[in-house]
């Protein structure tokens, strides 16, 4: 008899872990797939900052795969994802999160992977009513249809509320061993985790995507508005996760490291951005994003000086490095707190 094989969308959270385990328990060979959009929330991004150093620096999807004893395929979809984010057919959620389009896209990619690797069906950890945009009773058929996965898409945690899928009808899995979870409560999942002997699992409070974060979304919209286009590169979206973003003028912004971990991260961009730091006093590294004139660089230096130990000095020296690595010193008076306009902070 042919070994039935399923590919499971692994986010690193509890639901996809349980959905995967539930199907493995029925004797199906499962492998995981995890998509990297550039907006994924990872412990490592947080770990740049000292205050978050105590958070575990593990990739939760890898950890889930290892815990379950399955292979995990991590797929870079950064380029293809741009169209999902820029032109979402179903619009955005509370922030810049195109959750429904995102889910359709990921299931479509999983279907492609399933066909290329001769697998039989797709698993997700979706639960009816858990997310306001993508995990509703009325959006589940949309995901199945628009992704092209149709009845080869199985949601084990809420399957008993949905029409039987191909794996159920074909007898590859038993429907009565699937679940009827609904809503945002976590008790059924926690009980099932306990039943499976899973005691350590990730439960990210804000989901697994930066686009659901209000502050991050504001920075992204600011970037698009300032450039007059929604085009972006990976470096743009990575930098939105780090530092203070201060835009004193439409044509440029200053990204100021908040502590050593961020400064170390920004160091990696010194060849791609004009950058500066205080030379006469201890102070943070800052990148200049945009087209800045000499006058703009003077203002940027005043801002950067504001965050150094020379903030109360009459004059400080700020070292500026251009894109060729040429260094020059600008002497500036640090901005006073009341000169740093609130509306400059993105």
């Amino acid at each position: 008899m042919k070994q039935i094989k399923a590919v499971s969308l692994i986010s690193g959270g509890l639901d996809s872990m349980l959905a995967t385990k539930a199907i493995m328990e029925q004797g199906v060979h499962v492998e995981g797939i995890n998509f990297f959009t550039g907006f994924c929330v990872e412990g490592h991004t947080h770990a740049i900052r000292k205050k978050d150093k105590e958070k575990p620096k593990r990739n939760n999807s890898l950890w889930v795969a290892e815990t379950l004893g399955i292979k995990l395929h991590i797929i870079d979809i950064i380029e293809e994802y741009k169209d999902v984010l820029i032109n979402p057919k179903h619009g955005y959620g509370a922030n810049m999160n195109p959750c429904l389009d995102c889910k359709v896209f990921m299931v479509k990619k999983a279907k492609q992977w399933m066909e290329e690797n001769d697998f039989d069906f797709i698993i997700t950890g979706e639960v009816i009513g858990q997310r306001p945009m993508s995990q509703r009773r009325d959006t589940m058929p949309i995901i199945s249809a628009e992704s092209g996965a149709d009845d080869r898409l199985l949601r084990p945690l809420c399957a008993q509320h949905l029409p039987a899928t191909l794996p159920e009808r074909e007898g590859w899995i038993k429907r009565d061993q699937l679940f009827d979870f609904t809503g945002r409560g976590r008790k059924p999942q926690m009980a099932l985790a306990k039943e499976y002997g899973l005691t350590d699992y990730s439960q990210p409070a804000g989901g697994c995507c930066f686009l659901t974060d209000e502050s991050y979304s504001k920075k992204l919209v600011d970037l698009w508005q300032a450039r007059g286009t929604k085009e972006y590169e990976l470096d743009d979206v990575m930098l939105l996760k780090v530092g203070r973003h201060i835009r004193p003028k439409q044509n440029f912004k200053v990204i100021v490291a908040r502590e050593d971990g961020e400064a170390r991260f920004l160091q990696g961009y010194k060849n791609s951005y004009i950058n500066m730091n205080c030379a006469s006093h201890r102070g943070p590294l800052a990148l200049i994003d945009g087209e800045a004139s000499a006058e703009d660089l003077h203002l940027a230096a005043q801002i950067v000086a504001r965050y150094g130990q020379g903030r109360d000095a009459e004059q400080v020296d700020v070292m500026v490095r251009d894109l060729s690595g040429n260094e020059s010193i600008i002497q500036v008076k640090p901005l006073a707190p009341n000169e740093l306009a609130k509306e400059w902070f993105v």
Partner: protein
Amino acid sequence: MSEHSLDARRLLCPLPVIRTQDRVKQLAIGDVLTVICTDPGVMQDIPAWCRINGHAILQTQSDEYEYRITLKVGD
């Protein structure tokens, strides 16, 4: 058996793992790959990825800012 290196500095998780995964696909069983990174998380993730996929970690090294992981491609 041949030796290779991969510069994954400045990349944050999971990109160093993805780059490692993509590079290993191009190598032969028994080849050795050294991945150089700046994200401390790789010290957990690349070994985890290797364990899942049957590759052997030969050595891990770190200084204050860089991490080097040497692996041997398995089957």
